[in-house]
């Protein structure tokens, strides 16, 4: 059974199609990585699945409970890492949050606002927030942006462990990131072309 389904989905901004005629399925427990050149509609695809945009044509089906790492971190800069996680979890998962932050190498920063964090640290907070939410499918937009190779592997390990059994749809530029998460690659065509190319 598929957790996420897009059937001939299209989204237009003004007179220009950002995405058109897209068929895509992500099975429960499966992982798909969408790749393609800039402007081909990868982020639009995630926004359609998240329900932040409505398709102008076709159909988009997704579980009611989604979690996401956005292209930008979208953190509450005045709060600590723990505070950012509490927006999603409340205080009921403080122990799990502390453990996950430690696993991602963020345990040395108690009490510091995330505004003082480096780009890579902020990215890991955004990933921790997404993993601690109650959800049925996880969407990741360039999740490993700004992370070094070791941190990527450690973070990917946490994602694979905590997301087990649930659908994962990600967007990336580097096929290595898809491999880290065991995701099947789907390539979107450049903006001017139509149709969807299978992975080569």
């Amino acid at each position, binding site marked *: 059974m598929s957790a996420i389904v897009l059937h001939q989905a299209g989204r237009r901004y003004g007179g220009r199609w950002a995405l058109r005629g897209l068929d895509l399925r992500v099975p429960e427990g499966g992982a798909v990585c969408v790749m393609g050149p800039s402007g081909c509609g990868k982020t639009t695809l995630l926004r359609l699945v*998240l329900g*932040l945009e409505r398709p102008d044509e076709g159909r988009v089906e997704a579980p009611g409970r989604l979690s*996401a790492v956005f292209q930008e971190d979208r953190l509450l800069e005045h709060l600590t890492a723990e505070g950012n996680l509490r*927006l999603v979890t409340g205080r009921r998962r403080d122990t799990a949050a502390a453990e996950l932050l430690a696993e991602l190498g963020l345990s040395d920063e108690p009490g510091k606002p995330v505004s003082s964090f480096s780009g890579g640290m902020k990215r890991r907070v955004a990933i921790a927030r997404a993993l601690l*939410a109650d959800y049925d499918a996880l969407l990741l937009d360039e999740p490993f942006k700004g992370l070094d190779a070791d941190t990527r592997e450690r973070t990917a390990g946490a994602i694979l462990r905590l997301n087990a059994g649930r659908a994962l749809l990600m967007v990336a530029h580097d096929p290595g990131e898809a491999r880290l998460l065991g995701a099947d690659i789907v390539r979107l065509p450049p903006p001017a072309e139509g149709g969807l190319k299978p992975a080569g």
Partner: protein
Amino acid sequence: MAVGHEFLLASPLSVLRALARLLSQPATYLTALRSAGRILLGFLSAFALGVALAALCRRSPLVSALVSPLLSAARAVPVASFAILAILLVSSGWLSTFVCFVIGFPVLFGNTLEGLQRRDRALSEMARVFRAPWGRRLLYVDLPQLLPFLRAGAVTALGLCWKSGVAAEVIGIPRGTIGEALYSVKVNYNTADLFAWTVIIVLLNALTAFLLRRGAALLSGRLARL
């Protein structure tokens, strides 16, 4: 020739003496409290309704379209016009409360609406995607962004409320208020007392503005420790 004559303009020393005399009288504090209570009630009403209506306007373009011209007009109407009209509607005792509400409301409404409009849309989307409960969204996402606008609007409105509230009291002359004291100063041409009361009004405004800023800073600190 009246230059140098205290009948027209009191010397700084006379003003200081008058201020010391007023501050030594318990009645002065009662008078100040009476005026402050009414003025602050008008300010707080303006704050509550300004914030509530701005939130409503943010959600409903129709309400916004209806309210905006009225508030633009309200900003341009002189305090005296409001006060004289209001005497017909409310007792002179509550005139300053009414005038403070009418003067403070557009400022607080405008600042709150601007704050709501300038919120980071990306953060609102994020909170929506994670299905954060309403209360948590307010405390974690919305209030920290809104607070600088609320603080600026409140400090401006508070200053206007003190000015217009006392002016309304001078027009309505409710018993035992700063306005009544200023009115009697006018009748007696007692400029030393006029300046002394003016200093008291400025001090009251500074004190309430300080408390307001301190409260906002405490709230801001509390929100950063969520």
